[in-house]
């Protein structure tokens, strides 16, 4: 290739990358930089960021909103754990089906609810869990309870909602890693006298760990940043970080404080991404 041709190729590639890069830099990166700056400012009379620079917003984030912050982490972690406990056996079950058509169909059954509008799905869950909903009716007719349970507007309800919303994110990566598992390792373990329990924890689980970590991160990230689920199902006791951020924008808000909380949320997400890039990818 001549030097001129290489330069032409490079110019063409840069030209093709330019529009999308411009869009991402101006309408994605720059706004985030603004938020980062605003998080170090003071609150103006209208809630807008003004000088002088201060760390007060971060201090407030960790003191006043500390309890909500840690509760959000707890709820998101627990939702991730439940998704794992529900998702792993199912992913395993699907991957053990012989015919590819059955596997596709079973995966399709996981994906389909996932493709319907998130608000509609959350509403569907709410109708089941509300005071005069199906679950309370069922429990009552079974004689488990005498008075209807208050299931909605609790942190537990938010957790159920998050699991419901993001379970497919857990199942798909685990399915991929179980599918890729070499069964001969398991047979070898059995031949050497390991029972299924030992074989699972010593062979299968470590080998599918990248899938488990990927799935966990894929559930944890949207769960920690959730806004709709705690807003509709959490009430005041189930508030999460997302609701705190929203509360600081709009009327009587505090934009610098909201920005600081957003930065803390971003930090949590980046830590999760680091975990993913370190342990969540299969080594090639």
């Amino acid at each position, binding site marked *: 290739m001549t030097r001129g041709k290489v330069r032409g190729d490079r110019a063409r590639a840069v030209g093709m990358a330019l529009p999308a890069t411009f869009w991402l830099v101006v309408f994605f*990166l720059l706004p985030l930089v603004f938020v980062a700056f605003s998080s170090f400012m003071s609150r103006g009379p209208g809630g807008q960021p003004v000088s002088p620079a201060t760390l007060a917003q971060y201090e407030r984030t960790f003191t006043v909103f500390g309890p909500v912050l840690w509760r959000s982490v707890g709820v998101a972690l627990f939702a991730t754990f439940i998704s794992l406990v529900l*998702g792993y056996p199912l992913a395993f079950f699907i991957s053990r089906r012989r015919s590819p058509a059955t596997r596709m169909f079973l995966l399709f059954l996981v994906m389909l609810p996932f493709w319907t509008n998130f608000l*509609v799905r959350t509403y569907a869950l709410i109708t089941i869990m509300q005071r005069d909903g199906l679950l309370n009716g069922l429990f009552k007719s079974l004689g488990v309870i005498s008075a209807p349970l208050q299931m909605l507007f609790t942190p537990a309800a938010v957790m159920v909602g998050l699991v419901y919303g993001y379970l497919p994110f857990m199942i798909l990566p685990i399915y991929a890693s179980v599918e890729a598992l070499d069964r001969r390792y398991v047979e070898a373990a059995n031949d050497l006298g390991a029972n299924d329990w030992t074989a699972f924890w010593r062979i299968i689980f470590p080998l599918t760990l990248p899938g488990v970590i990927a799935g966990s991160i894929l559930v944890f990230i949207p769960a920690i940043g959730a806004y709709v689920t705690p807003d509709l199902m959490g009430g005041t006791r189930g508030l999460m970080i997302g609701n705190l951020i929203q509360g600081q924008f709009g009327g009587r808000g505090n934009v610098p404080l909201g920005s600081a909380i957003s930065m803390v949320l971003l930090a949590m997400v980046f830590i999760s991404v680091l975990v993913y890039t370190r342990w969540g990818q299969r080594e090639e």
Partner: protein
Amino acid sequence: MTIQPRPSPDPKTVARKVRRDLAVRRTGRFGMWLSPFVVYLFLWVPIIVLVVFSFNDGNSVSVWRGFTTRWYENIFHGTISAGTEAARFQTELLLKALRNSLLVATVATLISSALGTMLSLALARGRFWGRKTLDTLFYLPVVIPDITQGIALAVFFNIVFETVQRLFGVRLVSGFGTIVIAHVAFNVSYVAIVVRARLAGMDPRLEEAGRDLGANHWQTFWRITFPNLLPGVMAGALLAFTLSLDDFVITFFNSGVGTTTLPLFVYGMLKQRVPPEINAISTLMILASIILVGGSLLLQQRGNRDKG
């Protein structure tokens, strides 16, 4: 070092171990068979109940009072909640929200498909300074929580609008334009990822063969690269369209006063007074997404078949 022969195990212990191992296997099998029932029930019961009760003759969402199609009739006759003037207004809002959603999704999909495809081609084929950084940058919108993206853009538009007013005296407001900009900003990444997966599976020799046979860049692209890439571009576009139709949080912060999309309308219904038609509206939305996703899956399958 001498190797000690293993003492031959006591047959009783062996039998006990085998029995225990078989019990473990049975428990594991049972758990594995139980899991689909639990998970599929959990995933599907709420949706099925929602659909069934959209035909319920009564306002309750848990007590069955007989079959009716009147909620659907109300939607199609423009008389949501019993034919009052307010009802007609509600229906008009719903239809307007639906129109807005489709319009936003269409425009955002067209822009993000074009930009995303170009970006993925540049990243896959080009060698230029900053390519690695760009590679990381375009994954960011996928991982960063939508609430952060939403408020960051809202803050950004606020500052831009204020500056424009101060400098030019023109008053800009959020609305259709800001929603489309926001949607493109998160869709570009998804399109680029999907198209890139298709590019990775494409044989580069096809393009080389085209060039060897005397086609210039332009001809190679339109005759070889693009037709081969098309299933990926279509899949990316459909994903962008679905994400755009589905998005609530980012739209919520950047919609301004006048422009309501379908998710914003549904949110308003859930937050204020839930009308009895909500199940019917939701069912129609579920149906629409099934058709959309079914179509995209068929397209992808056809694309794969073409490939080999």
